[in-house]
């Protein structure tokens, strides 16, 4: 029964959702929204499960005096202090989301900078990943390097500036060449636009087709009860 009941619920819900997509008449038309509301309510309660897991995990780490359990102390203290300040803000300011409340302050001056810092790390990670990807090892990686350099140069002001300087230099050396006209020529932008809108877009759309069909096939497998890997025995 532990396996059959969830399977029946999944099949019935899946079929109903598909049917409601083509039947706008009441009660089918609004059923999908209603089911989604139920899902949101249920998933809201599971946040408690998550909190329980988080607190238990770190309490165990502290109790077992595991290596680097100091981080767990910081996490639990931060959690309970923020929670207490949230309740205080709710009573004092009618909402913990008010910017002048303690939780508003924590959000603006602690959480946002921390999030920004993590996001900023991406720049360094992109550099190290790009270094590995663009190393010239084969014909493919050479093509990748050249294409990436071209696209990057065309997307930043420095690229256009460099091209303009080069064009003027050519104009100064070869008097038959108009340096200003050459500087205005879309040497970087046109090939870049072509790369982005033709080969890149073709590959992207091919992958999108595959993902969409895989999505539908997986959904049908779940609705028909063929796909059961998400169920426990």
């Amino acid at each position, binding site marked *: 029964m532990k396996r059959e009941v969830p399977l029946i619920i999944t099949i019935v819900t899946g079929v109903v959702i*598909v049917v409601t*997509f*083509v*039947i*706008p*008449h*009441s009660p089918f*038309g*609004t059923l999908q929204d209603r089911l989604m509301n139920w*899902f949101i309510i249920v*998933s809201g309660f*599971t946040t*408690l*499960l*998550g*909190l329980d*897991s*988080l607190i*238990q*995990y770190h309490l*165990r780490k502290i109790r077992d005096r595991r*290596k*680097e359990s100091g*981080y767990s102390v910081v996490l639990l203290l931060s959690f309970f202090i923020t929670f207490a300040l949230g309740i205080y803000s709710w009573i004092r300011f009618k909402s913990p989301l008010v910017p002048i409340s303690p939780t508003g302050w924590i959000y603006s001056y602690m*959480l946002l900078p*921390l*999030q920004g810092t*993590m*996001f900023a*790390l*991406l720049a360094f*990670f*992109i550099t*190290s*990943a*790009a270094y*590995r990807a663009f190393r010239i090892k084969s014909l493919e990686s050479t093509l990748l390097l050249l294409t990436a350099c071209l696209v990057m140069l065309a997307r930043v002001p420095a690229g256009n500036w460099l091209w303009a300087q080069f064009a003027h230099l050519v104009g100064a050396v070869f008097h038959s060449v108009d340096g200003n006209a050459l500087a205005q020529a879309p040497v970087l932008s046109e090939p870049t636009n072509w790369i982005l809108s033709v080969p890149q877009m073709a590959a*992207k759309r091919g*992958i*999108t*087709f*595959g*993902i969409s*069909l*895989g*999505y*539908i*096939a*997986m*959904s*049908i*497998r*779940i609705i028909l009860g*063929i*796909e059961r*890997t*998400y*169920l*426990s*025995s």
Partner: protein
Amino acid sequence: MTVLVLAAGAGVIPAAPGPDTLREIPVVSSDASAFKFNLKADDVSNDGGGYLGLEWAVFPLDFGNLETFSGYRAFRADKRAGPYDSIGYTRPSGPQDSALSLTATYTDSTQDGKLFFYYVKAFGPGGEALSDTVGPAKSSAQWFHTGRLNFLLVAVLFGVLLIFYIERAKKGRMFVRRIAGLDAIEDAVGRATEMGRPILFSFGLSVLNDVTTMAALSIFGRVARKSAEYATPLLCPNSDPLVMTAARETAKQAYTEAGRPDLYNESNISFLTADQFGYAAGVDGMVMRDKPGAVFWQGYFYAEALILAETGHSVGAIQIAGTTSIEQLPFFVVACDYTLIGEEMFAASSYLNPEPQMMGSLKGEDFLKAVIMILLIVLALLGTVGVILSTAKGQSAPAQVFDKIVNWFQEV
């Protein structure tokens, strides 16, 4: 009859039936008086009822006078003679063209089956005008969304194909190409075991109602089973409590099936945070502290993808990624040893569990892919020929057919 009104008017003309304040209207412009609203009131199609749609040609003052033209007010009554109540105000949101081809619309909330009459008043600093009264019109609910017939037909076709291939797969073996990322699961777990390090599995920011998560769960089940067989700890930090619960159930079953339920440690599959970069920081911390020998990034990822994968690379872990997020795929391809690209993730459960039903659905998917490819080639040729044959007088027959087919697919 359309009645036009301008503020600094000269004459007086009879008004359309309506409130007393609109009975006498001064007319100034003879050109404007010829304007036809062509007001129509119809049931809103393909809805669950309760709405009537009004549509009329945009008033001449509306053209290029966005600052000065005020808009339109719609009036409604349940009898032609009135009394009419104002039901709302609207105006087209952007500059109109000069070909008088655009229409303004208003959707009225009504009671199904009840008859209503409408007229529209256009007004602004320069003048006002009334439309004819239209009606009676009534709203109703539809039992079938005709605009989604394309979806239904494709879904039925796909369903029939899947069932056909599932039945065919029961009769004989089917060939599936090797998927390196899935073949490498055992090697990755074995390597982590040899190094005496744990395995880390992340679902990213996936939520349980995403099909990608379902696909990732089937891969997680295989990884959990292998980690049970090799007695290697499996860590799984989560950003969604529902996914965490499903992952715990899957791991528990995998450990039981492997005959090692004693090794299952629920606290290893824990909730971290729902915050995107908080999650990235937390997982990065785990990677740096525990130094896993194998890392699996399977699920839906956003900007944190490369932060996670590069951290995994920095500790020398063998990394197998899989996502349906097209924007993050290149990052995983660069930073990881193996990457399951989009559909390969969905094929994972069939690949790892090659039962006829699963294999048949894969084949059905491939067949539909072939159909789409043929359709794309045919449509590309048809569209190109259509453009070549079209003249200034009008579209050629192939171009018209092309437009019809494309529009049919775009209807949903």
